[in-house]
């Protein structure tokens, strides 16, 4: 039964780090709230903004704290560190970090996404080229999965800012 077609599951953590939480909606919400609290406390205590890899370790730690009774989410984290280098990783439900390589996937269409990303990715893509690549990879994987769909949002994180675009896609 389709309840919502607009469920936001990608959240900004800092201006340059985003987290995507795929999984059980209630856990997505709770985890986002808890992470926001932790990151705000970090910012005030340390008087600096959290780096993406540090944030990933924090998420991993929080998930493993619930090793026996876990959150049903599989996070994907992407960001730029203070030297403008990109960082991506994903995690399983108990916090095992997968630093991956060139791309990271998560969700019900993960298997499809592995396929599309593997074929379409190439090194040294500029932001606009990257946008095209990720949009095609996402849409073609999602269209072949019954449980995925109802629109897509792409965010490109660059040193000068975030480019956010909604994709026109099959609404089913």
């Amino acid at each position, binding site marked *: 039964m389709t309840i919502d077609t607009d469920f936001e599951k990608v959240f900004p953590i800092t201006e340059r780090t985003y987290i995507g939480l795929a999984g059980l909606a209630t856990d997505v919400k709770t985890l986002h709230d808890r992470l926001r609290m932790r990151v705000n406390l970090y910012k005030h*205590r*340390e*008087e600096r903004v959290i780096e993406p890899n540090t944030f990933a370790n924090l998420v991993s730690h929080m998930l493993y704290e619930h090793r026996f009774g876990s959150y049903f989410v599989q996070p994907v984290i992407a960001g730029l560190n203070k030297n403008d280098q990109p960082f991506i990783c994903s995690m399983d439900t108990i916090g095992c970090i997968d630093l991956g390589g060139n791309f990271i996937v998560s969700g019900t269409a993960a298997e499809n996404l592995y396929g599309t990303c593997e074929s379409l990715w190439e090194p040294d893509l500029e932001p606009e080229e990257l946008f095209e690549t990720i949009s095609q990879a996402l849409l073609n994987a999602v269209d072949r999965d019954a449980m995925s769909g109802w629109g897509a949002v792409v965010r490109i994180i660059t040193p000068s800012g975030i480019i956010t675009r909604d994709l026109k896609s099959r609404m089913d």
Partner: protein
Amino acid sequence: MDRYSFSLTTFAPNGKLLQIEHALAAVGNGSTSVGIKAANGVVIATEKKTGSSLIDVSSLEHMVMICDSIGMVYSGMGPDFRVLVSSARKAAQKYRRMYMEDPPVRILVKELASIMQEFTQSGGVRPFGVSLLIAGVDDRGPNLYQVDPSGSYFPWKATAIGKNMVNSKTFLEKRFDSDIDLEDAVYTAILTLKEGFEGQMTEQSIDVGVISTIPTTQADGEQKASKFQRLTPAEIKDYLSNVA
């Protein structure tokens, strides 16, 4: 005034907690310790005074590493210092467990200061009889902090605590320069200790610790952050021979 000095948790009419004043007196009886923040690192040093020549001085641990990037020294009561070292190391590892990196110095200092403050506001305990000098390198560069028995902490460019702190600080004020190199800072720290040292200063009678901001290049060409290091007696002897 005596009416207010036995209970830690009672303010005296002049606004002071007398137990803390007495704790500071205990610090003032302790061996002098000195710290200097250089442009490219931090150095901390202390006297290892022993009452007898029969003591195995090499086994005394006045200068300790808290984690790879932070070291600590004290003036005051040795046993109280050991308890704080234990707490500091645990706090640093807890931070590491969560964030997979060493805590910034200011975070560790806040944690230690918080512990020391707890012992000024709880029943049945007494304040720690030590002042700490904490030296380390983090994202902001070199750091030097002092933490007092009350839980107050101060960032310093150069400072001294313990028996000879007043003269030592005057000495440092004349010689300190914010562009000072770490090597020169080590010499200055040793000279400062020498000023107030009774008797002959040897490599066995002082402890020196340094941490540099410059990463070390390993055998395979990889750059690794420098660790906090206690100077060996042989290294201290080298410095002393150039200073004498």
